[in-house]
């Protein structure tokens, strides 16, 4: 019980926390990876989209005004950290949505996106949940870590599923779209391929659907956002950024630090629900003890400007040096 133990205790505690940082509670992944060869890996039954009629977000006594929020993330090699981070940050996502009344009854769905051309688990989709079950869904996600190296993943297949295999009371009863966040760093394929739909989802379809078509269909049901980590492998790739900028415009969110992903999603929804403007949202997350404010602020400023929820003071005419408008000087 000597006092000389203090620093040793601190050392051992820090070592224990740091040693654990690399491990995960993705029990299903750990189990599968340690017991089966890769070509035998398959999606956990609770997340298998095959044969699913619809994933539902419904009102109930406990949650009379449900709002569907879905977060689908790339689980291929380049993005392996995201699900682990999300799992750690999950309680905060609920907390942030609830605490300031951005959303009273969120129901959150998680999913994983891989590459249907080469992965065993190209699409994994949980249920809309309002409780701890979400953590089970996350724990059951298979982190295949594959991907093909062609800078494309099957985002369009996930979008097809979300457009055609979801049912939401927020939309059906109240005409409010759900939210869908895709977190990734590559492009989608140009079309949803009928063969992949048959194999992965089980729909009997013969026709490919072009990417812009399925996106438009999806956007009638969800506010769709693409979150791209600026530190990711393909951030510097102009094709990837150009692709998403073209299709989603201000709804592409460039995020410097994935640690801030929960806060970013929460504030985006807060602004979407018109519960807060960006400044208030940043204040809220700071008061919740988060120091992600700078990162979130930077990521969401373009979106916030597009919504016009922040008043930007403009210079009086003629005082700017910009020749594109106002008075030419000299």
């Amino acid at each position, binding site marked *: 019980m000597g*006092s000389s133990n203090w620093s040793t205790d*601190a050392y051992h505690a820090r070592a224990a926390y740091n040693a654990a940082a690399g491990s995960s509670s993705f029990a299903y992944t750990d189990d599968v990876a340690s017991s089966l060869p890769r070509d035998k890996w398959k999606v956990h039954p609770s997340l298998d989209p095959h044969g699913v009629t619809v994933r539902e977000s419904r009102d109930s006594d*406990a949650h009379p005004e449900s709002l569907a929020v879905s977060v689908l993330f790339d689980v291929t090699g380049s993005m392996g950290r995201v699900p682990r981070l999300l799992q750690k940050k999950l309680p905060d996502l609920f907390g942030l949505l609830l605490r300031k009344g951005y959303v009273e009854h969120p129901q959150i769905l998680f999913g994983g996106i891989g590459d249907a051309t080469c992965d065993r688990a190209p699409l994994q989709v949980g249920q809309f949940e309002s409780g701890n079950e979400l953590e089970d869904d996350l724990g059951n996600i298979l982190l295949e870590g594959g991907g093909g190296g062609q800078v494309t993943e099957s985002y369009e297949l996930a979008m097809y599923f979300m457009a055609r295999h979801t049912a939401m009371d927020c939309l059906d009863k109240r005409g409010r779209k759900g939210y869908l966040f895709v977190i990734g760093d590559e492009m989608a394929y140009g079309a949803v391929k009928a063969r992949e739909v048959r194999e992965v989802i089980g729909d009997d379809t013969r026709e490919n659907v072009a990417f812009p078509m399925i996106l438009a269909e999806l956007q009638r049901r969800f506010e769709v956002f693409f979150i791209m980590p600026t530190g990711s492998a393909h951030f510097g790739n102009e094709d990837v950024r150009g692709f998403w900028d073209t299709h989603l415009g201000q709804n592409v969110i460039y995020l410097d630090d994935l640690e801030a992903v929960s806060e970013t999603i929460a504030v985006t929804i807060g602004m979407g629900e018109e519960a807060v403007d960006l400044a208030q949202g940043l204040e809220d997350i700071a008061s919740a003890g988060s120091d992600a404010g700078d990162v979130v602020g930077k990521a969401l400023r373009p979106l916030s400007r597009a919504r016009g929820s922040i008043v930007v003071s403009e210079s009086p005419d003629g005082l700017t040096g910009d020749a594109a408008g106002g008075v030419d000087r000299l």
Partner: protein
Amino acid sequence: MSRTSGPRADEHAIVVDLGFGDAGKGVTVDLLCARRRYGAVVRANGGAQAAHNVVTPDGRHHTFSQFGSGTLAPGGPVPTHLSRLAVVDPFALAAEARHLAELGIADPFALVTVDRRALISTPWHQAANRARERARGSDRHGSCGMGVGETMAYALAHPGDAPTAGDCAHPARLRRKLRLLADHLRDRLGDHPSGEAGPDGTAGSPDLEECVSAYAAFAQRVRLVDEAHLPHLLASAPVVFEGAQGVLLDEWHGFHPYTTWSTTTTANPLALLAEAGRPGQARRIGVVRTYTTRHGAGPLVTEDPALGSLLPEPHNGTHPWQGPFRIGHLDLVAHRYALAATGGVDSLVVTHTDAFAGAGPADGSGTADAVEATDGRPLWCTAYANPDGTALHLVPEASPDLERQERLTRALLRVRPVLAAIPDDDLGGAIGRALGLPLEAEFGGPTRADARVSGSRGRGPGRGPRRGRVTRRAPTRPN
């Protein structure tokens, strides 16, 4: 990860010790979590001084201190939530996680959420606690030397400066608070004649930077959550509130000064439920042994050293700060007082029903006079007799008054127990009847496999009107 199998629990449970601690809250929580699926085990009082021993039927043993005792439940560990009313010791949490990992828990830290508002206890608090206890000499209060009381005291005196779990994620803020704490304690205790290096700048004091970086690693690894988390948790699944210590050590109802700086009744869990808009929506479960124990100084009216040789205590030895583990006959008077102080419970768990088996005079030890006098049947205390022969009635008061509690303590040190044989071979049942409570379960051995669970889930007295059910997640879902 919460369990994915087994029937879901249908209401929140609060587990409270009706004695001085060590009655068996750990095994009770383990049993609850083994039988039903709970969303979490929630700690709502005390800190790392809790020592809840759980032995699994396959022989694994762990002393739970910061983790909830549902961690070894079959079918998967139940997550732990350390609420704003718990005191968190990141060092103790780390040490415990290491041992749980050895027992086969895949990623213990992933099981834990911590309210950012929860106070943390630090080596500085610990040092102050020990210095104070040393200064009391033979007059020790029986604290555990973990600094939990010191943590509470400092927070009450300096509400804005007490380090919290949330501060661990902000090194600059934490560093400032730890410096203030160290300065404060040096001013108060620095020149104390303890003969050992204090919490000051002398050799052997805690290294501030070491601690800051260890706490940062804690914040990085364990999920810190805000005030919306627990209400949400309570809305989505039934939980178990695992009490620490016992009602008879309660800061207001215990026997001053031999008390803990913590509310050990059901008040804290009920407060958290009320904050979440679910006042009273829980089943309150009281726990007693078939005999009454106390670890540390203070009144133990029925104490009988002879019982020590009859009733071995594998997990509670002599503690460097608390002193020897003390044993007495079942003290109905004290347990009834505890029941009144906590506002009643709904059912009872009785542990150690096997303790007296073979403890009769036949073993020839010749030391258990009291047990011999009643044909080897265990005794209970039905009343306290003052030196003048009158009875001492033990009644809790609603308003806190430490002077009154101190007078009570002095009176308790003078009374003699009125002992009688427990009238029945069905120990658990007899104790339940004597306390007026339906039996939830009784333990005839150390593990959940030794528990006999009562068939009836009858409602106990004093429960008041039946409360609303815990709401459940309802969306129907194909597939």
